[in-house]
């Protein structure tokens, strides 16, 4: 019996836990299905704006979690704690800077991504729903900006929020109630800050994450569209190659893979 080469042995050692995981969860296959998709031959850098936006959002999530470890959302401590983050905490200035400027980057990329989809006509059949999901993300992202602006609790933050809330208050019929909801009562007070904090770091990120999940599901299901100048037909079939031996796929047909409708 031929002795296995050292390389094969190493491969086997690396492969075993993956196979183990795949057999019990299908996660490896799912990840491959998600990552190794066919895209049109002539898709180019423009199509990366979506994942760039996603990356910007993930940066906001990560830096936001760290900032929350030092930030104190009450009117007496908020400003001081932000100064503490900026001046005293090791690399605090960097994390705060990333979160602060990253917020603008996120919004800008969001609109570039939107413009790309619009100009490429990538919102057309069968991707209308994905456009709609994306359009729902836009106001949530803008609300993230609005709610986050109050948190440093300096003069700019305070008065910008006063003006922002009062602009909401001038909306017809329910405007005054909306303003009262945002203020948590008839006057801006301690509850306003913690309310904005909660909206900023729990409510909106949760909603955006859910919509991003839906967005990605639809991207994977429907595939990437060709650019408008493409000669190729939009949406070629996915390559359904049989699983290579040892790749960890137990039974590809049992993964509940749904194909594109066309």
């Amino acid at each position, binding site marked *: 019996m031929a002795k296995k080469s050292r390389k094969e042995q190493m491969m086997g050692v690396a492969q075993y836990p993956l196979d183990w995981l795949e057999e019990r969860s299908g996660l490896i296959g799912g990840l491959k299905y998600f990552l190794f998709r066919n895209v049109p031959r002539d898709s180019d850098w423009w199509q990366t704006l979506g994942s760039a936006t996603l990356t910007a959002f993930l940066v906001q999530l990560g830096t936001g979690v760290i900032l929350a470890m030092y930030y104190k959302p009450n*009117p*007496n401590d908020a400003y001081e704690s932000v100064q503490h983050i900026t001046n005293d905490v090791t690399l605090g200035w960097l994390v705060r800077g990333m979160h602060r400027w990253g917020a603008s980057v996120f919004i800008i990329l969001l609109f570039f991504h939107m413009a790309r989809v619009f100009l490429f006509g990538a919102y*057309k*059949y*069968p991707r209308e729903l994905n456009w709609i999901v994306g359009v729902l993300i836009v106001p949530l992202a803008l609300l993230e900006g609005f709610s986050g602006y109050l948190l440093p609790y300096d003069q700019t933050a305070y*008065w910008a929020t*006063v*003006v922002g*809330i*009062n*602009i909401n*208050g*001038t909306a*017809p*019929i*329910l*405007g*005054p*109630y909306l*303003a*009262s*909801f945002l203020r*948590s*009562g*008839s*006057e*801006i*007070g*301690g*509850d306003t800050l913690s309310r904005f904090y909660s909206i900023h770091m729990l409510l909106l990120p949760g909603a955006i994450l859910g919509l991003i999940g839906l967005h990605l599901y639809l991207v994977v299901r429907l595939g990437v569209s060709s650019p408008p100048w493409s000669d190729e*037909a*939009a949406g070629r079939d996915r390559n359904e190659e049989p699983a290579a031996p040892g790749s960890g796929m137990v039974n590809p047909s049992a993964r509940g893979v749904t194909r594109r*409708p*066309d």
Partner: protein
Amino acid sequence: MEPHEGQGKPHLPPPSLWPVGFAIGVVCILVGLIVSWAAVAVGAALTVVFGFLWVRDVTGDYRRRELPAPPTSAAAIPASEGEAATAPAEPERIDRNMFLEGATLGLGAVIAGVVTVPVVGFAIAPVFQHKHHHEVDLGPIENFKEGQFVISTFLLDPSEGEITRRTAYIRNNGFFQNKPSFTVLSNRCAHLGCPVQPNGPLFEKRKVEQPTKAGDVSLIPVLPAGGFGCPCHGGQYDQEGNRTAGPPVRALDRYEFYIRNGRLSLGKTYSVAKVVGAGASAQIHKYRLTGPGEHVDGWEQIFYPLQPPS
């Protein structure tokens, strides 16, 4: 909508001009909201008509498609031709599966409601709660020289701390019909709520720090010869708080005031449409407190029929 079988092209609705009319209708409504109700009515009519035509156009394909023949019911086939005398269909009844499904969904809905309603109520409750107003003691009225505006800053609610620090411009108008009269202007701009500033010199050297039970009240005499101005968007007011220029929709809000044991004390805030006259004999068109930027009089007030308690 699924694509047609064996057709490479994706399904697209036929081109249609109706959305153009629909869009014009929507624009008409929006413009009408500002300009006149007649335009709103016309816009609404356009929107409905063109919306209907559009939907009819888009769904035309669907509706023209032939429906599959409904399955022939047992009754349609004479017993002699069908499978010999099938038993008459039993009356529909809820079987066990249906019952369990309904029970599970119903119970789930009840549980979700029991959890959600209090939580959501907790989040929106402050909107509907009356806030208790304390009177704010500003110290003896001797601190307020007759005819002199004073910038007074005080804590509206000492238990909440510095965040409730407010500013009022107060002028002693002397006696009117044997009663002391004060003009107490809130510094909250009637445009979007920024703090308005006096257009004129402050006399910092004559500043008084008046201790009260609710913390220090600071009183700085000022001569707002040019009235008051807002740094945010340029709203301007005269010395009675009437709007003279810029975007504010009404005059500055005012505080009710009381004299208790020779001390000036501030009560509730109220909104003011305009002030006719000046000083002690001014006629104040008083309304309940509303948010900045909201009209309290004129036809625009119909936009704000509901006010949360303040």
